[in-house]
C-alpha cells in the first residue's frame, strides 16, 4: 500500500474546534456589521475568522485521515477533488461574466465584493469537504448492513 501523507484521525477534533470558533466569530462579525455598520472593532474579529480560523479548520479537516482510510476512501477523495476542480474552473470562467453583468446592473461596489469572494480560494476546500463528507456518509450508510 502507498503511504498516505495525512494527519492522524484525532486531528479532526482540532479542525472541528477551529471550525466552530470560526463560525461563532463569523456570526459575531456579521451581526454588528449588519445592525451598526462597519467599525474597526468588528474588522479584527472578521480577520481572525476569515483570515485565520476558517481557512485553518478547512486545511486541517481536508488533510486528516478517516478512521479507516482504505482504497475506497482514497477513490472517494479523488472523485471529490475532481468534482471540486470542475466547479472551480467553471467559476473561474463564469466569474468575469457574472462580474460584468453585476457591474452593469448593480454598480461597481457589488463587483468589488464578488471579486473579494473569488479572491479567497480557500473556501473551495469547504466545497471539497462537503462533497467528500456527504459521499462518505452516503456510502457508509449504503454498505453498513451485512448481508
Amino acid at each position, binding site marked *: 500500500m502507498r503511504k498516505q501523507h495525512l494527519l492522524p484521525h484525532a486531528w479532526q477534533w482540532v479542525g472541528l474546534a477551529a471550525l466552530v470558533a470560526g463560525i461563532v466569530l463569523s456570526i459575531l462579525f456579521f451581526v454588528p456589521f449588519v445592525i451598526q455598520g462597519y467599525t474597526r472593532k468588528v474588522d479584527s474579529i472578521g480577520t481572525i475568522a476569515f483570515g485565520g480560523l476558517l481557512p485553518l479548520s478547512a486545511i486541517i479537516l481536508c488533510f486528516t485521515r478517516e478512521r479507516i482510510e482504505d482504497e475506497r476512501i482514497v477513490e472517494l477523495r479523488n472523485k471529490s477533488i475532481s468534482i471540486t476542480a470542475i466547479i472551480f474552473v467553471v467559476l473561474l470562467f463564469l466569474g468575469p461574466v457574472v462580474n460584468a453583468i453585476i457591474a452593469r446592473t448593480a454598480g461597481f461596489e457589488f463587483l468589488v465584493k464578488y471579486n473579494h469572494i473569488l479572491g479567497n480560494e480557500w473556501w473551495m476546500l469547504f466545497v471539497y469537504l462537503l462533497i467528500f463528507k456527504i459521499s462518505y456518509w452516503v456510502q457508509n450508510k*449504503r454498505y453498513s448492513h*451485512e448481508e
Partner: protein
Amino acid sequence: MKNNIRVERARQRMTQQELAELTGVSRQTINAIEQGKFNPSTVLALKMSLVFGIPVNDIFELEDGD
C-alpha cells in the same frame, strides 16, 4: 467483474468484519466489493487470495463487457 467473496466467506465461516480486519480495510469496503460496486486493487485482491487460500482467479472473474 464478478466475485465469489460471499461464497468463500460462507465456506470458511468468516464474517465481513473478520475479512476486513485480515485485509486491512473497512467492513463497508468488503460489502461494496461483494455487491460489485467497488473494484479492489491488485494488492487487496491478492490479500484476499492469501486469506482464503485460493488463487485470485477463483475469487474474481471477468464478465462480458469488462
